[in-house]
C-alpha cells in the first residue's frame, strides 16, 4: 500500500455504504489486542509477538524457506561465507525521524551477531554494511531474519525505536504498550491509527486475543473466530542418563493422537521429528504408531525404578501433557511421576521454532541440546537423537488467536510471516 493513495482510499471508504465497509479496507480506528504474557521488556528477543509491529530485520525467510529482502535490498558473500555485504534500503527512517543507514543500523546488528558468532566485524559505509568474521557464517541470512537480529535503537524517552509500521507511544511494563501508526513507514501507512496491546490479560472482549492451550479462554464471544498460526513450538521430552531401551519404550507407548485431539483441540500436530513438516519437509519419515505391547516387551529386559517427569512451573498445558505421558507410560509399566520444575529424570520442554529455515532451526535445537553438527549432517544427527530417545517429540503447537468480527484482513496479513503479529494490513470496522 503506497502512501500517496492512502488519503484517497480513506476518502472513498468514508463515502461507501456501511455494508460495503465490512469488505473494503478502511483507514483509521484502534485495534485492541489482549495477550496473556506480561512482558516487562520490549526487547525483540523477549516480546516476540510484538516485534514485527515495531522493528524489522535486514532479511526475512519466506514460506518456501528462502531469504527475501526486507531492510536490505540485496547481498553478496565470498566463497567461504565469512564476509557478507548488504545493500540497505533507502528512504527508510526510524520512528524518531533519523534516517536508516549503515551507520545507524550497525550497532544493533553488531550486538545481535556477537551473541551468535562471537567476534564479528560490522563495517558501515553509506547504505552498505559489511559483516565479517574469522569463521564461516553460512546461516547468516537465517540469523538476520530472526527478531533478535532486528534493527532498532533505544533512547531514554522511548523504550524501542524501530523502522516498523507502528511506533511505541506509551510503554507500561507488564501491563500495556500503546502503539501509533508510523505515517512515514517505508512500505506505506498501515490502515489502523493505533494499537493498544494489553499484557497479562485473560479477557476475551478485545479485537484480538491469544488463546494459549489450556487457558481459561474456553468460551469465546459470539462470532469470534479462532485463528491458528503455523506450528511454531515443539513440545518434547528431553532425557539424559536413562537407559536407551527405556527411552525407546517410553517413546513407543506415548499415544500422541488423543493429545492432539483433546489437549490441543486439534490445533496442534503430533510431533515425531524435531521440526514440523512445513519446516523440514521430511518430518513424515519419523512418524510412528504407539505400540504398548512392544514397549512392555522391551522393558521386560530391564529392572525399572520410579522416574520423575518434570514440566515448567505454572504451565498448565505442559502439566496436562506430562500427566497424559505419565498415564501412557503407566500402561507400559513405567512409573513416571509428573513434578513441577526442571530436575526430573525426564523433562518436558517447550522449544520455540524461531526460524523458517530448517537447517537453522535444527541447528538452534541442537545447540540447546549441546550438539554441534555440520549443516549437511543435521538430518543424520536428528535421526540419531530420536533413535536414542534423547529427545521424544510430542506435539507441535501453533499460536492461536481469537479474532473479533470487526477485524478484517487478518489471514492475509499474517502471511507476512509465521512469527509475531502482523497488523499493518488489517483494518477494523468502526
Amino acid at each position, binding site marked *: 500500500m503506497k502512501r500517496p493513495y492512502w488519503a484517497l482510499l480513506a476518502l472513498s471508504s468514508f463515502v461507501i455504504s456501511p455494508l460495503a465497509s465490512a469488505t473494503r479496507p478502511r483507514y483509521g480506528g484502534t485495534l485492541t489486542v489482549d495477550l496473556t504474557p506480561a512482558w516487562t521488556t520490549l526487547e525483540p528477543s523477549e516480546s516476540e509477538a510484538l516485534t514485527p509491529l515495531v522493528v524489522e530485520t535486514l532479511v526475512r525467510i519466506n514460506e518456501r524457506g528462502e531469504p527475501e529482502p526486507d531492510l536490505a535490498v540485496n547481498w553478496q558473500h565470498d566463497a567461504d561465507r565469512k564476509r557478507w555485504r548488504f545493500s540497505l534500503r533507502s528512504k527508510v527512517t526510524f520512528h524518531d525521524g533519523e534516517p536508516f543507514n549503515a551507520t545507524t543500523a550497525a550497532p544493533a546488528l553488531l550486538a545481535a551477531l556477537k551473541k551468535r558468532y562471537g567476534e564479528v566485524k560490522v563495517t558501515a559505509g553509506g547504505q552498505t554494511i559489511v559483516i565479517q568474521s574469522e569463521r564461516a557464517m553460512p546461516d547468516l541470512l537465517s540469523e538476520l531474519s530472526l527478531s533478535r537480529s532486528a534493527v532498532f535503537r533505544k533512547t531514554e524517552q522511548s523504550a524501542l525505536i524501530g523502522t516498523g509500521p507502528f511506533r511505541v507511544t506509551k510503554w507500561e511494563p507488564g501491563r500495556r504498550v500503546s502503539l501509533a501508526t508510523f505515517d512515514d513507514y517505508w512500505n506505506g501507512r498501515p490502515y489502523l491509527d493505533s494499537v493498544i496491546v494489553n499484557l497479562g490479560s485473560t479477557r476475551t472482549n478485545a479485537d484480538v486475543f491469544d488463546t494459549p492451550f489450556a487457558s481459561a479462554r474456553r468460551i469465546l464471544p459470539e462470532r469470534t473466530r479462532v485463528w491458528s498460526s503455523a506450528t511454531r513450538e515443539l513440545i518434547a521430552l528431553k532425557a539424559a542418563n536413562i537407559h536407551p531401551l527405556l527411552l525407546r519404550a517410553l517413546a513407543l507407548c506415548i499415544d500422541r493422537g488423543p493429545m492432539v485431539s483433546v489437549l490441543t483441540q486439534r490445533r496442534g500436530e503430533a510431533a515425531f521429528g524435531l521440526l514440523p513438516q512445513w519446516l523440514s519437509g521430511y518430518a513424515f519419515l519419523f512418524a510412528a504408531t504407539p505400540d504398548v505391547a512392544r514397549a512392555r516387551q522391551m522393558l521386560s529386559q530391564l529392572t525399572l525404578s520410579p522416574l520423575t517427569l518434570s514440566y515448567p512451573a505454572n504451565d498448565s498445558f505442559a502439566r496436562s501433557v506430562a500427566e*497424559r505421558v505419565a498415564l501412557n507410560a503407566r500402561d507400559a509399566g513405567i512409573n513416571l511421576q509428573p513434578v513441577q520444575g526442571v530436575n526430573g529424570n525426564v523433562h518436558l520442554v517447550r522449544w520455540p521454532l524461531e526460524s523458517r529455515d530448517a537447517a537453522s532451526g535444527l541447528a538452534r535445537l541442537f545447540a540447546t541440546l549441546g550438539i554441534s553438527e555440520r549443516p549437511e549432517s543435521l538430518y543424520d544427527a536428528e535421526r540419531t537423537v530420536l533413535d536414542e530417545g534423547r529427545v521424544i517429540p510430542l506435539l507441535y503447537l501453533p499460536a492461536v488467536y481469537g479474532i473479533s468480527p470487526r477485524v478484517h484482513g487478518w489471514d492475509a496479513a499474517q502471511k507476512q510471516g509465521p512469527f509475531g503479529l502482523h497488523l499493518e494490513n488489517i483494518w477494523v470496522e468502526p
Partner: protein
Amino acid sequence: MSFRAKVFLSITGTVVLAVWIVAGVVSTTVTKSFERREAQRTATLVSQFRREFDRRGADVVRRIEAIANSDAVLRIGVNLSDTAQYYSEAQTLAREQSLDFLELVAPDGSIISSAEWPARFGYKENWLTQPVDWKAQGIFLRLEALADRPALGLITVRTVKAGDGLLYIAGGQRLDKDFLDSLPATEGLRLQLFTDFEFMPAVAAPLIQEVARQPREITRTTSDATTTAIPLFGRDRQLMAVLLVENSRAELASLKNYIQSTALIVGFAGVLLALALSFWTASRVTRPLRQLASSVREVSGGKWDTRAAIESRDEVGQLAQDFNRMTEQLVEQRDRMIQAERVAAWRELARRLAHELKNPLFPLQITIENLQRARQVSPEQFDEVFRESTSTLLAELDHLKTIVGRFSDFAKMPAPQVEPMDLNQIVNDVVKLFEAQINAPGRPRVETTLHLADNLSLVSADPDQIRRALRNLVLNALDAMPQGGTLAIRTQNLDGKVALEVSDSGEGLTPEECERLFTPYYTTKQHGTGLGLAIVQSVVSDHKGTISVQSEPGKGTTFRIELKA
C-alpha cells in the same frame, strides 16, 4: 526372728493383703465399667459414621442428578461427534457441584472428561457400560483410580440419553480423613480408614488383614486400645475399605495407674504404720523382757545383786519379781559359800601350817629332850650328843626356814619381766636340770619324751617365771610316778598362741581332785605344800595365759598351758 519383727510382719501382711484385695476389686470394677462405656462409644461413633455416610450419599446423588440435568451435559449428550471439546467439562462441573470425582463417559465406555484424573480422557470405564439400573443402585463405595494412588469414594452413576446410547455421569466425593474429621470428635476415640490392604501400619496390619480374609466386624483389645475393624463393602459385596475405630485405653490405664499408685501409697503407709505399731507394741511387751534379759546377763556376768524393774502386774511383772527373789537367794548363797570357803581355806592353811610345822618341831622337841637327858644321864657323852643335837636342830630349823620361805615366796610373787623367749629352750633347760634326778641310781626308771615343735613362735613372757612353772610341773609329774613311767613334754604352735603340755603316766586324778588342784595349800602328796600348782597357775595367769588339766584315774595326767605368741 525377734518379737518386734514378727509383730511388724503380721501387721504389714494384713495391711498389704487388705489393700491388694481392695485395689483388685476396684480395678476390676473400673475395667468392666470402662469396657461397657467403650462399647457404647464405639457403637455411637459407628452410628454417626453411617448417618454421615447416608447423608453425604444423598447429597452426592442430588449433585450428580443436578449435573445430569444440566444444560452442559444435555448439550454433550446431543453432540457426541466431537468429544474432545469437552475435555475439561468434568472439572468445571465437579468444581461447581463440589465433587471430588466426576467422569463423563461416552456410550462406548471411553472417558470424555475426568475431573479427578484429567489425563485419562479416552480410556475405557467398562464397568459403567454393564447393564445396571444405576438409579436403583444408588450410592456405593468404589476405589477410584487416581494418578498417584486409588482413593475411596462415595459414588453414584446417572445416565443421559445420547443418541442411541447413554452418556454416563459417574461422580462422588472422597471418603477419606476429611470425611472422618467431619464426624463429631470424641475424646479418646479415633477413626481410621484403610483401603490399601498391602501397605499399612504394622500395628493395624494383622487386624485389617484378618478382616480382609473374613469380612466381618472384629474387635481386638490391647493394653493401649480397643480396636474395632468394620468392613466397608462396595457394589457386589466387594470389600472396599476397613474402618478402624480405635478406642484409647489411656484413660483406663491412667485410672488403673492411679488405683495402683494409691494402693501402693496406702500399702506403704500401712507398712509405716505397721512399723510404728510393731515398735510401740514391741516396746510395750518386750522392754520389760529385754530388761529382764539384761539383768540375767548381768547376773551371769557375776553381778549377782542385779534387780529387774517391776513395771506391771502381769506375767512379765511376776517374772521380774521371781527373778529378783532368785538373785537375792543367789547372793545370799554366794555370801554363805564365800564365808564357808574362807573358813575352809583358813582351816586348810592352818592344817597345812600345822602339818608342815609339826614335822620339824617334833625332831626339835626330841633333840632338845635328848640333849637334856644326856646332860643328866651321861655328862661324859654330853659333848658328843650336844654336837649331834645342835647339828640336828640347825638342820630342822633350816627345814622350818625353807617352809616359811616357800609361803613367803607365794605371798610375794613378783610381776613378770616380759621379753621374747623360746619356750623350747626353756623346756630343754628344765629337762637338763632334772636329768640327774631322773637318772639317779636306784630310782625307778622314768623315760623322758620331748615333742618340740619346729619353728615354734616366740612368746612374750618372763623366762624365770615360766622356767619355775615348768619346773613345778615336771617336779609334780615325777612325784606322780614313784614307780617310774613316762614323762612327755610337748610344744606346738596354735593360732596366735603357743601350747605347752606336760604329761605323766602316773595314777591320775579324780575329777574332784582336778577341780581343787590349783587351790593354794591343796595337795595330794604327803609332803607337798600345796603351793606348786598354785604358783604355776599364778604365773600363767600373770602372763594372760590359760592352764588346764586333763586326767583320769589310772591313765596319767596332762597339764596344758597356752600362752600368747
